[in-house]
């Protein structure tokens, strides 16, 4: 029997607000901050304390919901999700349940199979929990609690079970990350846990077209995936594993899984005996969250152009390849950089600028571990460099060296070219003299060429370029070489 995977995603994105969701504590990088240094009586759940909603968190949530084409609820309700765990100071998490911030949205993803629309079921606000560290020492085990993360605003984004492959899951995750970064609400750093993606996977038999879909099999969840690669592998692994179990007539257990990065297998974290009962009820400490239409409209107009729309526009407006356009829009700052460069030098083909960014510049940035914010080459300066190349003032090789220097010093292209005397020699007279010298130096090679060994031309060309220290205009060199050889032959 053939099986089809049915996959839904739950994404938890921390919102990069200044302060926590319900108190004035700062939101800090919990991997870099001393434990329990960003904690107050509210987020540590002291008796008598009350939550006060951070409006910025709501605004950030609305940005995402609007970017995902969701319907915004004019009133949404906070609810208490009750369970005991030492990383949950109040014994309940303030979340949203029956009436979330937004629902019914959509996002288009692009895979090797083409475009596909993924439906968003709901988007809701909640608070993050603290972090536990289990320490074992000399057989004595204990647990440390860090509440720096407790109360950090989280946005939960839940899709419909619209994914059929690991590739689709990854495409969605990457596209969502790009959106979050475009909106400036999340750094997208999965390693640090600020973006947590949890797939739930089940299989069902494939039925012939026109028949009612088969019932879904048991659903398993995978948690603690800290890279796109891990996400894709884990999903692919589970699809295969479940298919094998079902083929063998075995049952899939309802479990929560983790991902073993080293072994590339999923491992059981928790067997679910029954559905958890969180005893949700409306949070009496917070009035219903009213979101006025005017506010929504204001946020909507302030949204930046989103990655997918920008991809389409860049492709068409600048005649870029799909591949190059994708590379540029992956980060908003890079796409902005590209368009600033294009604007700075309208006479330079945008395509060339795009190629220089996605090729040479990315190479230098990766090597140095520098991002767009730390880049010393200004967009106009890069455009200036590409202009020198397209005008034939320097050749590609020289331009590469100049860019490396611009990257290190932040100087302009023209400055460097002038200072170093790197300007390309295009003076036909000067080049003619160089060619004459080379032909005089290598009479045998010239004779060999004239007797029909065409390959020797490259050797002679190389010798001329060498004499010119690489600065000669190659087209003129070639033309002059052919001209003088023809003259020798005629003699």
């Amino acid at each position, binding site marked *: 029997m053939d099986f089809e995977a049915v996959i839904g995603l739950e994404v938890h994105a921390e919102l990069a607000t200044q302060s926590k969701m319900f108190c004035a504590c700062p939101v800090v990088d919990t991997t870099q901050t001393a434990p329990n240094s960003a904690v107050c009586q509210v987020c540590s*759940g002291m008796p008598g304390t009350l939550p006060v909603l951070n409006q910025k968190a709501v605004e950030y949530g609305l940005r995402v919901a609007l970017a995902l084409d969701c319907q915004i609820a004019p009133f949404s309700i906070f609810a208490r999700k009750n369970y005991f765990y030492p990383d949950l100071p109040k014994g309940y998490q303030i979340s949203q349940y029956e009436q979330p911030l937004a629902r019914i949205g959509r996002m288009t993803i692009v895979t090797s199979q083409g475009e596909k629309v993924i439906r968003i079921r709901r988007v809701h606000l909640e608070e993050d929990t603290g972090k536990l560290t289990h320490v074992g020492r000399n057989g004595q085990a204990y647990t440390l609690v860090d509440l720096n993360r407790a109360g950090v605003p989280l946005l939960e984004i839940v899709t419909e079970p619209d994914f059929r492959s690991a590739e689709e899951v990854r495409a969605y995750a990457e596209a969502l990350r790009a959106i979050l970064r475009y909106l400036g609400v999340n750094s997208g750093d999965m390693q640090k846990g600020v973006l947590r993606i949890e797939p739930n996977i089940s299989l069902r038999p494939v039925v012939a077209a026109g028949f009612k879909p088969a019932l879904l099999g048991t659903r398993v969840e995978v948690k603690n995936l800290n890279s796109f690669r891990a996400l894709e592998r884990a999903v692919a692994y589970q699809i295969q594993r479940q298919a094998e179990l079902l083929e063998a007539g075995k049952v899939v257990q309802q479990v929560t899984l983790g991902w073993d990065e080293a072994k590339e297998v999923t491992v059981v974290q928790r067997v679910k005996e029954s*559905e958890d009962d969180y005893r949700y*009820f409306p949070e009496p400490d917070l009035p219903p969250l009213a979101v006025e239409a005017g506010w929504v409209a204001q946020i909507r107009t302030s949204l930046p152009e989103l990655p997918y729309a920008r991809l389409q526009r860049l492709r068409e407006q600048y005649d870029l390849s799909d591949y190059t356009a994708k590379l540029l829009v992956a980060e908003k700052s890079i796409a902005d950089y590209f368009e600033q460069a294009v604007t700075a030098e309208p006479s330079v083909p945008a395509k060339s600028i795009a190629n220089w960014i996605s090729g040479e510049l990315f190479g230098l940035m990766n090597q140095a571990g520098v991002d767009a914010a730390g880049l010393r080459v200004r967009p106009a300066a890069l455009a200036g460099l590409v202009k020198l190349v397209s005008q034939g003032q320097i050749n590609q090789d020289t331009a590469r060296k100049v860019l490396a220097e611009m990257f290190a010093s932040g100087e302009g292209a023209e400055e460097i070219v002038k200072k170093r005397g790197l300007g390309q020699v295009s003076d036909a007279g000067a080049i003619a003299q160089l060619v004459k010298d080379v032909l005089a130096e290598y009479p045998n090679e010239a004779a060999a060429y004239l007797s029909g060994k065409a390959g020797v031309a490259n050797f002679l060309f190389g010798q001329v370029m060498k004499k010119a220290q690489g600065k000669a205009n190659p087209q003129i060199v070639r033309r002059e070489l052919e001209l003088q050889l023809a003259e020798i032959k005629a003699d």
Partner: protein
Amino acid sequence: MNLELTDLTLMQAIEALRSGEISSRELTRACLERIEKLEPSLHAFLHLAAESALAQADEADRQQVTGDGQHKPLLGIPIAVKDVLAVEGLPCTAGSKILEGFVPPFTATAVKRLQEAGAIAIGKTNTDEFAMGSSTENSAYGMTHNPWDLTRVPGGSSGGSAAAVAARMVPAALGTDTGGSVRQPAAFCGVTGLKPTYGRVSRYGLVAYGSSLDVAGALGHTAEDVALLFSIMAGRDALDATTQDVAVPTIDLVGATLAVASGRGLAPPLHGLRIGVPREYFVRGIQVEVEAGVRQAVSVLEGLGAEVHEISLPHSEYALPVYYIISPAEASANLARYDGIRYGSRIQAEAMWDIFYRTRGRKFGAEVERRIMLGTYALSAGYYDAYYGQAQKVRTLIKRDFEQAFERVDVIAAPVAPTTAFPIGAHRDDPLAMYLEDVFTLPANLAGVPGLAFPVGFDGAGLPVGMQLMGQHFHEDVLLRAAHAYQQVTDWHMRAPSL
């Protein structure tokens, strides 16, 4: 001046302090001495802050002389604070072993506002554990005794505060009211106690029991005293999202009349005031002297110019079951934080979960445990709709009862409790009988309307009889005005127990 300083009402004490007749140190010391004398028989307090109180009194006296404290209406006044309200630096146990040793690093907004107005927190008063009870018998630190009869309960859960005021240990005190916990002990102890509108006084720093019902209130000898404390505590607080931005009545100290933003005042007579008497509050088997006392008081109000109408609050009989679903449900979540990990006391164990189980299993009292179980059950999957969901619907009907009644009347007059103070242990083995003590006070909490209890007489055993007035949301001033008028022509509120 040679009177007992502790007999002064709040207003009298303020006058005496302002005129320089007495000092705050004298007043505070007198309170501390009386507390020391009576505590062995009453046990109204869980913690005393004698030293810091005297230090604050000296500072108040300095400010009184220099004029620095001119704008502080409560400068140098000692008050007692129920032990469910946080005061920075003072222990806060909520009457529970699980919070033993907890000293909050912050002060409840209601207390803070009084402190900023010059009041001195002299100590923390006894309460039923987490304010769950009607007699203080559920306090983990021993019960409080009624100053009028030491074999009887003072009511609860703010029994410590009510007893402390009645016994003249302090001129005034703070309590909290979730289902009658200010009004019922006020009635049992013969003092005046206000439960403000829900959302009127900040709950920040109030150890939560039933979050949609809890409100901090004041207890004192007179409506004026309570009005002054209320007007200072009340008002929107940025730390409590459920507080409302509604104009708060202010006190004109010179004339000692309540000048209200809306133009209403405290002065009698009560011409034009429409008082409703709900028939549902008199059909139960209430103590004859309670019903007689209330009806007598209503006719006094009538004599002061009020019109009296019989009204109906038809869903009153459902208040008890609704309350005992909603408040335990909220409590089951509110009390989940007490796990022994971050504060309070802990029973150490090898395994993490055992710390939870043992700490919670042994440090909560029986009544708290019962309500956590009830609430957990009411919220559980499969039961939610039948219990919590249904209770919320009926709560809406109870609210509507009040809204409809307030189309016809300004104030509703009713008994506070079916009986006067009952003997210690009377309901010890019968939680349901104890719950019935709150049957007349619960509706105001469920509807969120204000309620004011004050003494209107005594029964044959010499125990105070109380009456409550309930009003529209944010119309506390109407209740206070009526009670003030009543207290101008009666002296029940000035009677003191012989101790």
